[in-house]
């Protein structure tokens, strides 16, 4: 067994991170809210890094693409990176989105891309129209879509869910790091917040959640390629873990930052707001868990290694 990501993939993540950081980092999110057209520049920029030309059927390149999603998540990049990478192998489609019904909500569907909607049972339909749904505080780039008749099938759902979890992982890891940094610096009662054990223990909850999620992201990326029969179940196992970890991480982050964490000047506020579409669409935590129960009933729950005797 080898639980470590390929070095080549890690290097690609660093390249994407450095490039996005050098061109603005969190400023991309701030700028895109003022000028939604800025997202087109982001897509072209990532294309310049060959992200849309990756051969995701090849495991190392899939790992690299997954890590690029994490790099995007770390700065709440306002762009459908996972949705485009998951569509690389689909003909006539630039981006896919998982939807629960015909007039669903889909983030970034207003971008000039050929979008395909994907239902949980694997049917696809071209997205015919998309209009920004009202630019709410928690759904800056969410659009109401209309789809053409459901026509064919695709099995890209598991890959999309896994890549979105990598994006969310990037958000959570960045939120954890900035919260840890904040409590080291912030002093009250003559000492840094980090010296209070209650603060330390809250952050260990976050660390256990994010470390568990990172390892599960790695395993599931491997599993959906190597054990495709259970891929969607494995992907929903991962999404369930990701949604739970997001609740833990952002709750602790907002609490420890105090009021400054709600303010637009704090990057954690941008991470928290821009994680919402990933966490709520097409379904939030309870519905994801209910779907997981059904999927396990259908495919079983297979371990990396099955232990234990027969019942």
């Amino acid at each position, binding site marked *: *067994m*080898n*639980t*470590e*990501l*390929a070095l080549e993939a890690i290097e690609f993540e660093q390249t994407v991170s450095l490039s996005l950081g050098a061109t603005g980092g969190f400023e991309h999110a701030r700028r895109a809210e003022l000028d939604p057209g800025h997202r087109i520049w982001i897509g072209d920029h990532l294309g310049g890094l060959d992200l849309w030309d990756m051969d995701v059927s090849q*495991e190392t390149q899939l*790992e690299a693409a997954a890590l690029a999603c994490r790099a995007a998540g770390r700065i709440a990049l306002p762009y459908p990176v996972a949705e485009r990478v998951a569509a690389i192998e689909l003909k006539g489609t630039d981006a896919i989105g998982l939807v629960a019904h015909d007039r669903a909500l889909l983030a970034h569907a207003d971008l000039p891309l050929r979008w395909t909607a994907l239902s949980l049972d694997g049917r696809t339909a071209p997205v015919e129209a998309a209009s920004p749904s009202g630019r709410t505080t928690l759904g800056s780039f969410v659009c109401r879509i209309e789809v053409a008749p459901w026509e064919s099938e695709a099995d890209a759902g598991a890959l999309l869910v896994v890549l979105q979890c990598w994006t969310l992982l990037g958000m959570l890891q960045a939120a954890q790091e900035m919260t*840890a940094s904040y*409590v*080291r610096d912030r002093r009250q009662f003559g000492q*840094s917040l*980090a*010296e209070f*054990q209650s*603060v*330390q*223990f809250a*952050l*260990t909850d976050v*660390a*256990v959640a994010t*470390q*568990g*999620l990172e*390892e*599960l992201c*790695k*395993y599931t*990326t*491997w*599993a959906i390629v*190597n054990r495709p029969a259970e891929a969607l179940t494995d992907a929903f*196992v991962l999404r*369930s*873990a990701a949604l*739970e970890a997001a609740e833990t991480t952002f709750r602790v982050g907002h609490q420890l930052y105090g009021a400054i964490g709600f303010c637009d000047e704090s990057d954690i506020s941008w991470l928290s707001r821009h994680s919402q579409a990933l966490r709520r669409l097409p379904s939030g935590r*309870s519905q994801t*868990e*209910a779907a*997981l*129960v059904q999927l*396990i009933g259908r495919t079983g*729950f297979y*371990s*990396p*290694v099955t*232990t*234990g*005797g027969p*019942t």
Partner: protein
Amino acid sequence: MNFRESPEAESLRDQLRAMMADLLPEDFLGGFTNDPADMDTTEAFCRELGSRGLISLTWPSEYGGQGRGTWEQMALREEMWANYEPRGAQYMNVNWVAPALMRFGSQDQKDRHLPAIAAGEEVWCQGFSEPEAGSDLASLRTAAKPTVGGWEISGQKVWTSYATVAQWIFLLARTDPVAEKHHGITVFILPLDRPGIEVRPIRSMVGPHHLNEVFLDGVWAGPEDVMGEVNDGWRVVRETLAFERVGIARYARCERLLLEAPTALGEGRWSALPLTLTARWAMALVHTRQARILAYRVIDKQSSGRVDPGEVAAYRIAVTKLEQEVAEVLMDAVGELASGDPDEEPWKFVRAVEDHWRYAQAATVASGSVEMQRILLARSMDLVRR
């Protein structure tokens, strides 16, 4: 990345499963029950494991082992724990007693104990905790006072698992009463039948053999009973406990029980459970997988000689919380059956769940409390500038 198990580890699992199918009674739930026959089963099983060279599987060849890798040790650990640990108390021998002997034992100690451990013939207990020294182990008071040719040891140990069935104790005692508390501690390895040692069982919900008191009243120890250097016992303990890193593979039994639940309870009972409960069940499976993968990260690093104490702590927090979560979910799923007639179907599954719940209560206390693991994890996060 590659999460596929090696053919060697797979074949070891097959061999172990065949052995267990042959040697374990159908209703076996571990050696620590009220039925003495279960303890006899573990003893016979260990002798058979020993005769096949499977206890010393990963030991270096100089100690009679096969030098096989950490992943095979993991396969052994998972198979044993998923099947109610048929090695009984001897799991500790592989996890830390033998590695400690190899690292710190004298030649005589190695010659005496390693072949006996490999043959499945020795049971050890850990003489660490005391009434005034729990998580703060270094404040232990059991005193070894110098006397002609050795020491006289007096004091009390508590929570000493398996002391009623063990032949040997790995004992910590203070040999320098004035040194700073982490110094002046020495490890003694003593036979439990040495005059002056008395073991008293403590009755508890966890079950027999898990908790005992050990009283020491002027117990004589010679230089040949010391492991490592005199007054250097804290280093021995610290490094010894590091051998335990992954410890027992709790997630393997959790997963087995969770996956057995729908079949064991039957279609009628299972489908009548509310979605809130089946969703908790599914999340427990999610957490089982997370704990397993966190263990694999630790083992993967260990196999190339690297250890990250924060990662070990994160795994231990995840797996001990998992144990308790699974206990609650399954007790909820079996419902009134857990308190009902012990012969009512599915009695074996219900007994297993009830046994799991009782043992799970200790998961976040035993082998280093979850609070200590949180402290270790926080330390690894560099939250406090030192």
